[in-house]
């Protein structure tokens, strides 16, 4: 049987079925202690329904050597539907339709712009052309991954 596992002074490795762990390259290893690991660091949700040009800063519990891997996801809090997700940088915008009693129709625009630095998530939330209604409650769900690169 092919040698599938090695645990010695070089570390711990497991190869794919049919590959000798002592000669297998990175493509044929299922696990290697030489590879880096991702670890969950922080998760949370932030409301994004304000109207300000400056970015708001939400600091991590520590400063990373470089921007961490962060998964960002947009959540419509009114119906709990999860929408677009992205890593590191998320931008979304949507328009509503509103017709006032005088028959004038407005198309208020809401823009949320989020990005990640080594120490924080930065969020900008803007809505425009919205004289009578406020945007729906949107949230940003984030998951920060710690790592050893």
């Amino acid at each position, binding site marked *: 049987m092919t040698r599938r596992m090695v645990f010695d002074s070089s570390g711990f490795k497991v190869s794919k079925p049919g590959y000798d762990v002592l000669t297998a*390259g*990175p*493509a*044929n*290893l*299922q*696990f*290697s202690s030489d*590879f*880096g*690991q*991702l670890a969950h660091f922080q998760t949370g949700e932030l409301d994004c329904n304000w109207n300000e040009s400056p*970015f708001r800063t939400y600091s991590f519990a520590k400063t990373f*050597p*470089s*921007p*961490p*891997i*962060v998964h960002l996801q947009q959540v419509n809090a009114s119906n709990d539907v999860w929408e677009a997700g992205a*890593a*590191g*940088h998320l*931008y979304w915008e949507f328009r509503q339709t509103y017709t006032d009693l005088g028959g004038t129709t407005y198309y208020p625009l809401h823009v949320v*712009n*989020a*990005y*990640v*630095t*080594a120490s924080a998530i*930065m969020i900008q939330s803007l809505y425009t052309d919205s004289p009578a209604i406020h945007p729906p409650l949107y949230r940003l769900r984030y998951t920060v*991954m710690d*790592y050893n*690169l």
Partner: protein
Amino acid sequence: MQIVASGVIYGPSNFTDYDFTVPDLGFSPIVLLGGSHACAYSFPNATTLRIRVLNNAYGAGGNNITWAVTNQRILH
């Protein structure tokens, strides 16, 4: 999922390609990116990761990009 190669693009420029040598995994792996830029990535050959920096969300330079190649293939 593990990270087989990783690095940082220091002071990235918009609309610029950055190439990195990575292990040949025999498939297109999931690549994780961190930072304020919108980015795209491709593998022009088996051992080259190409990251195209598309734009900086904040409009300010100097915010580095972290990249990590995983050993997880994209499952269909």
